[in-house]
């Protein structure tokens, strides 16, 4: 239970899709001029992520992983179809988005009209494919956790686009320098928001086992580790040369 809660908060605040890993930036920048459309798109992204990440988890678990086909028979246990991940994931996503489009058109034509072209564009939103790929890279363990991950990543994205839309509505009345107006100031504000979200990084430093490896921060600490090792080596070398003399 605790790992669910931990994953939930980690995906919303610490590994926020927009601020930590920059997924879904194109639609984030394009749709954030008004809060109303931003809310609509955010809701659609939450829904699509919550549906596609568990589905892709099932695909990964039973078809794509190394040795996943063992349920078909012992002679299939050596197959590693993970190179097909991209094409299968994108196929499920495209199908689910088509489904969401049909459902939204039927039940809420107003929302459908306000979203316009952006609903089919969710299929190629990096946030959706990125959610599934990160789920695969971090080797999320169970279906429940995959659903949790999809839902909370979507909520994190929704939070980000809601915040930037609200800010953009307000700065329309501010004195932004002309070259920065529109796109430029949005980038800089998003950068400042990302700095703010980094402060959440100290939130889950409990004594449990380390969370699943994160590509960006793990790679950064590796970088620090290797530079530290290099420093130690070089310090050791210079000490030795001094001692010789």
């Amino acid at each position, binding site marked *: 239970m605790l790992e669910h809660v931990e994953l939930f908060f980690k995906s919303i605040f610490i590994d926020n899709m927009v*601020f*930590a*890993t*920059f*997924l*879904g*930036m*194109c639609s984030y*920048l*394009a749709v954030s001029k008004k809060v109303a459309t931003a809310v609509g798109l955010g809701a659609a992204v939450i829904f699509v992520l919550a549906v596609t990440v568990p589905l892709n988890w099932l695909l990964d678990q039973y078809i794509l992983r190394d040795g996943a086909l063992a349920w078909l028979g012992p002679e299939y246990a050596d197959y590693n179809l993970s*190179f*097909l*991940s*991209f*094409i299968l994931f*994108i*196929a499920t996503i*495209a199908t689910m988005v088509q489904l969401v489009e049909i459902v939204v058109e039927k039940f809420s034509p107003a929302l459908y009209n306000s979203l316009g072209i952006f609903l*089919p564009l969710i*299929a*190629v*939103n*990096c946030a*959706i*494919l*990125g959610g599934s*790929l*990160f789920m695969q*890279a971090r080797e999320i363990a169970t279906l429940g956790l995959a659903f949790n991950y999809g839902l909370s990543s979507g909520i994190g994205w929704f939070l980000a686009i809601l915040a930037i839309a609200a800010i953009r509505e307000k700065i*329309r009345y501010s004195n*932004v*320098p*002309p*070259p*920065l*107006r*529109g*796109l*430029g*100031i*949005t*980038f*800089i504000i*998003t*950068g*400042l928001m*990302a*700095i703010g979200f*980094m402060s959440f990084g100290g939130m889950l430093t409990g004594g449990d086992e380390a969370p699943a490896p994160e*590509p*960006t921060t793990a*790679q*950064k600490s590796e*970088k620090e580790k290797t530079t530290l090792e*290099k*420093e130690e080596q*070089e*310090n050791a070398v*210079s000490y030795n040369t001094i001692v010789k003399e």
Partner: protein
Amino acid sequence: MAILTKKDTKLILDPLADNNPITIQVLGICSALAITAELKASIVMALSVLFVLGLGNVVISLMRNIIPSKIRIIVQLVVVAALVIIVDQVLKAFAYELSKTLAVFVGLIITNCIIMGRFEAFALGNGVWRSFLDGIGNAAGYGIILIIVGFFRELLGSGTLLGIPVLGNPIDKTGLYAIGYENNGFMLLSPMALIVVGILIWVQRSRNKTLIEEN
């Protein structure tokens, strides 16, 4: 086909500045921000997108008269996914360390809006040679921004370029470090990528007043 006509050179040169996919068309932002902490990764990503966009544009342009309109997004996705799988496998085979740095962002080339955007806007309605040039031009425009951002982030963030220390040695305090200069580690983190691109946009729009948005 040997000499590029004026219209064709426009196809290549426009995306480099005035119609730049990242700063003007606002496409392909995700990968531009995420992997530019190192110049090497930026160059490899730019080359990958060049391959996928150039070849993809050619393939879609060749097929443009036989793709039924209802399933064209699916066809485009399949073409891009196939090309990206090739890129991914080649990277894993020949540059494993780099493919670990790029991690999921190689896969995310599939959803790179530039590629789908150019397929829809150009390759579906134009001939093979022009589509190829358009693909090359847009990939070059994307690549330029990536390389500029990667250059500044790596230089200011770790004092190296392509892994080679250029500002001196931080441990032995040679070069610039002798006068007390320190690496700005913050440049390697995500927020600075956004701010660097914001500043690039500022510079570009100051030089070309026609690009300024009306509020």
